[in-house]
């Protein structure tokens, strides 16, 4: 019996490593893709020099060079900073960003923890991430950082509500909090995916997700032209790298969740028996990649919203729309259940 439990522990650890290691590599290459894609949109090259063994390889070794550089740099503590909190903040950000991945189903049955409260767990983890930002802003003992942290906190809390309401719509439509079951209730080709009946919620969920990860056009927490880099202005070296890792892991997380909740996760858009109609993890990766591309596209073409405009958008537009659409979905669910996946 003991042997079984030890084996279970080992097996879980192996699965965790099998999720976290590829995730870190994807984060690394997301930064590379971001610089290349935005470089392409802005009419320049992006990183294309750092390679291995004298080969340029289109700059594919750039993320590793950056990582090594960041890890080798000194972590500078600002004067009168609270060192414990200063170091805890990036750890909290990273831990919550990674912990949320525990319930994400990559394919049918390919999930670390297939728990029934998966959706609630994800909301809890992404909400906890705001503590990392607030603590970073407070512990840095810098006005720029504190301003950025306060903005970020208000923004994340506001958009959490719109995001939560959007997910309530998914919950009503699928009748489950388990992410695998949410995907399975969308089976039947592209017409059964939730983004059609829940279209406003789909848009609002993704935009709120962009706001929640502090990315353009909602990056007031880092507002470069006024508070330089916001909450992580005083961070350097490995501590900064953790923030970076957490931010990009969250981006991938939001993209993956949008794919799972609204775009049918690993399901194929086609119906029938052909090879292309089979559910596959590749579909999941393609959908996630599409939303990640949207993130980069936003950053290249949108300016930053002003803080008061962000608040107005969140409270006066998104939340009312989600509330109304939840009612619509509820009514459809009662009277015409076949419209939303049975």
């Amino acid at each position, binding site marked *: 019996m003991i042997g079984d439990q030890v084996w279970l522990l080992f097996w879980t650890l192996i699965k965790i490593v099998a999720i976290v290691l590829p995730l870190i590599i994807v984060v690394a290459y997301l930064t590379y893709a971001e610089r290349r894609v935005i470089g392409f949109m802005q009419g320049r090259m992006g990183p294309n020099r750092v390679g291995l063994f004298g080969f340029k390889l289109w700059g594919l070794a750039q993320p590793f060079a950056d990582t090594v550089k960041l890890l080798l740099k000194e972590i500078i503590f600002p004067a009168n900073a609270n060192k414990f909190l200063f170091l805890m903040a990036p750890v909290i950000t990273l831990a919550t960003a990674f912990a949320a991945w525990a319930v994400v189903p990559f394919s049918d049955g390919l999930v670390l923890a297939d728990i029934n409260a998966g959706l609630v767990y994800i909301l809890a983890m992404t909400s906890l991430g705001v503590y990392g930002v607030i603590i970073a802003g407070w512990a840095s003992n810098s006005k720029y950082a504190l*301003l950025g942290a306060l903005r970020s906190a208000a923004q994340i809390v506001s958009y959490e509500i719109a995001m939560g309401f959007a997910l309530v719509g998914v919950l009503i439509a699928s009748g489950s909090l388990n992410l695998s079951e949410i995907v399975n209730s969308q089976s039947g080709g592209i017409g059964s995916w939730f983004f059609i009946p829940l279209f406003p919620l789909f848009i609002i969920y993704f935009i709120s997700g962009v706001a929640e990860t502090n990315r353009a056009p909602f990056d007031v927490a880092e507002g470069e032209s006024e508070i330089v880099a916001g909450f992580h202005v005083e961070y350097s070296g490995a501590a900064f790298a953790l923030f970076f890792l957490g931010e990009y892991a969250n981006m991938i997380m939001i993209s993956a969740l949008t794919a799972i909740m609204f775009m049918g996760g690993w399901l194929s858009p086609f119906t029938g028996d052909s090879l292309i109609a089979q559910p596959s993890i590749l579909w999941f990766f393609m959908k996630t990649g599409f939303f990640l591309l949207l993130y980069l596209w936003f950053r290249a073409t949108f300016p930053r919203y002003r803080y008061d405009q962000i608040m107005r958008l969140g409270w006066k537009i998104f939340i009312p729309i989600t509330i109304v659409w939840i009612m619509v979905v509820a009514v459809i669910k009662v009277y015409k259940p076949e419209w939303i996946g049975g």
Partner: protein
Amino acid sequence: MRPENYQAVPLGDSNEYEIFIGPNHPGIEGNYALKLILDGDTVVKGTTDAGYLHRGFEKLMEGRLWIQNLAIVPRICVPDPAPMEVSYSLAVEEIMGIDAPIRAQWIRVLQLELSRIAAHLFTFGGHAATTGMYTPMYWGVADRDLVLDLFEDFTGGRVYSIYNIPGGVRRELPEGFLEKLSHLLDYLESRQNDYDNLLFTNQIFVQRAKGVGVLSKEDALEYGVTGPNLRACGLAFDVRRDDPYLIYDQLEFDIPTQQKGDAWSRILVRRDELFQSIHILRQVIAKLPSIKGPIRTAIPNPLSWNVPAGEAYARVESSKGELAYYVVSDGGDKPYRVHVRGPSSMHAVQTLEFLAKGARIEDVAQIMFSLDACPPEVDR
């Protein structure tokens, strides 16, 4: 940990606090500093702190020969150097009582308008970058580079062309230059659609820029605001039309204006001006081949060149506003006094302080860039 001379600013019981923007800050154009007193997100008081780029240009010019100063003047404003050369040359010509030949005047107009296009392309991008959108900056700088290539072609210098000389211009245009210029203008016009889609119809940018840094016509006149900033307040004042110099009275062009006086009006005026400059350059291309003659009036040996005693005030319309040189000569081989009336000292000091008051902190950088101030010109 704190510097020896550090002293906290006494702010009493109020909720106000002080924050520094600059001299090294991503939201600031050049080395320039702002000290803001904030209440929450709102600026209670903004104080500008110029002088980080002070190189004493005006004093330097008193110690150099008349001809040597031509290499100093363009450095006063890096993004738009051509009006500096032309204005200085015009002032010296006025003291000497000579005029540049007609052909030289047309070439000077060509140089001035090309420089205006380069400066405006630069400003669009800077303004967009302060709102967090960097793509127009890269596009603008890339397109400006094509203009700089043309400058290299006909003056030899990309940024500091040092092409003018009192009495004319230094070189004839190279072979086939006007065709190249014509191609560039076609290209820039074809880019209009791209810029409109990316920047001028971008709803988030419109929301960010509208109603920011509103300057009324009365305030603008009181603070000595000129150029596109004044025209954005609804007053169509342009030195090129109201006090014509060179051959601007023979050219046809509109003076774009807007009524609101906010950052959005200012960037729209610049956008329209860019296309007016293209319009002017097309007229120059059509007319220039038919104007023959010398490009320079003979001046004495520059090393022993005494400008007769006298004084002159020559003003031109630069991309930032009215630019003027006041030159006094005591009959020696060096100027007695050169004063630069740069538009930026009006825009970046008093107007910026006035507009920053009551603005949100996010908008301060945008206000500064929308005024298109040029810090080295403030510190001349």
